[in-house]
């Protein structure tokens, strides 16, 4: 973990206008939960529709996408990454610093409002369950989107397609793909940690735990490998 890289990354990330997109998300989540409760919606409906349907399926991946591609992809885009790469630092430590910053920012941005919203729906235990599950989700998504930043020149677009098509559509329609869907791991963690019967989990805790670690390590490893052979494009004229 390199503190200088983490410091520059955090300042760059939070100073960028795109990061302001993060702000309304927690407000929307808590606001919609409050509206639901005001209209006396069933706890099970709120858990399924708002906490999972909006929080886990939309806000968590979207925040992680904005942050995860912002910590490295933006620097590659504007060329500032060269300042970090022209240093005698192992590429794995660069990726680690980026990953820690991305995961921390995403986790805080999603876990806090999720904790608040879930507590409103079903008490503190449900709140903790969803909050911690979102921390795990933020870590694994960050690793994946970080890797995407070095694999493709259009990480936001590819990441968005992944979130919408794979996580959003396929993993809910084709049952078999659930064992490779981050969304279902997060739901399983929330279920296991809260012990709540408000919503069904779809994968086993063991699968969710192992796959979360596997995806995180795989993402970080791939990002490091790609950064090692990072090439700057030559003259265009």
């Amino acid at each position, binding site marked *: 973990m*390199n503190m*200088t*890289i983490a*410091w*520059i990354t955090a*300042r*760059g990330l939070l*100073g960028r206008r795109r990061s302001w997109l993060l702000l309304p998300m927690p407000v929307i989540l808590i606001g919609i939960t409050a509206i639901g409760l005001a209209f006396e919606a069933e706890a099970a409906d709120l858990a399924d529709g708002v906490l999972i349907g909006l929080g886990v399926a939309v806000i968590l991946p979207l925040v992680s996408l904005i942050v995860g591609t912002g910590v490295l992809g933006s620097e590659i885009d*504007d*060329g*500032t990454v*060269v*300042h*970090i*790469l*022209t*240093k*005698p*630092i*192992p*590429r794995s430590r660069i990726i680690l610093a980026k990953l820690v910053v991305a995961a921390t920012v995403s986790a805080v941005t999603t876990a806090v409002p999720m904790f608040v919203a879930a507590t409103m729906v079903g008490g503190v235990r449900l709140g903790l369950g969803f909050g911690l599950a979102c921390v795990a989700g933020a870590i694994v998504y960050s690793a994946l989107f970080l890797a995407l930043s070095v694999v493709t020149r259009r990480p936001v677009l590819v990441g968005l397609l992944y979130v919408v098509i794979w996580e959003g559509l396929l993993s809910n329609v084709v049952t078999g793909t659930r064992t490779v869907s981050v969304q279902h791991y997060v739901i399983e963690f929330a279920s296991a940690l809260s012990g709540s019967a408000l919503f069904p989990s779809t994968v086993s805790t063991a699968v969710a735990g192992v796959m979360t670690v596997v995806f995180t390590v795989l993402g970080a490893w791939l990002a490091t490998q790609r950064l*090692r*052979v*990072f*090439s*700057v494009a*030559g*003259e265009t*004229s």
Partner: protein
Amino acid sequence: MEHRKPRTKGSPVSDLHLRGVSRWYGNVVAVNDVTMTLGPGVTGLLGPNGAGKTTLLHMMAGFLAPSRGEVLIDGDATWRNPAIYRKLGLVNEREAVYGFLSGKEFVRASAKLHGLPDADAATRRAIELVEMADAQDRRMDTYSKGMRQRMRVAAALVHDPAVLLLDEPFNGMDPRQRMHMMELLHRLGAQGRTVLFSSHILEEVEQVSGTVQVIVAGRLAASGDYRTIRRLMTHRPHVFAIRSSDDRRLAVALMASDSVAGVTLGKDGLTVHAGDYGTFTRALPRIALDQGVRVRQLIPSDESLESVFSYLVSA
């Protein structure tokens, strides 16, 4: 002009070797079998736009793998070798900086990333070297292009590297900034650093460096002392396009002149091959006057840098 004494402090003098380096993208060859050795002092990498200068610099800096051949600094490959940056500083052409940092924070971050024992002292020294102490606390997005460039040089120099590579460092600078940068490069070279900068402008190169590597269409076209290359350039045959009131009459008279190597008469006027630039341009008005021919147009038709370079390739 060149003072090649070893530096008194910091890392020892380093050499940069390129051995049969080529780089291609698909079917396009960007750099073709370049072999060169760069030692202490300032060297200019001269060539027209698109000649492969940036590709070559990126390979030297470890940001691009050579398709064939190798780039070595003191025997170590630059590609996939982050440790090389202890000896190497790079100022690339894209002037991207972290605009949200002050100049001092930017240079200091570089010092910290290099793991220097006394980052503050190194930062101060580097900023003094580029004479930016007055503006060091301002955010970098308020800097002019020249100021940004100097801070980037400071960041690239903070660890006292033996090799400094700069890609088009004078681009977009005003004359004062340009002069300042030239002085700085001079000083760095005189300290015993191996400094290489690229440029597509001959005048920039001749003011800064004694040694020139000329690259044309991906190949090393000429290398050595700039004065020799300059002489080659001025003594090459020149081609002029001329229109006059009586082309045929002028052509006959021109052929009689020593300064003319050949004349082609076309319907759009004359194409004259002159032996050397100065003699011909002095002789032409006199010849025209003697013949009573009015010269309407005189255009040196091969004055583009590309033609100068292609002449060098064939020389």
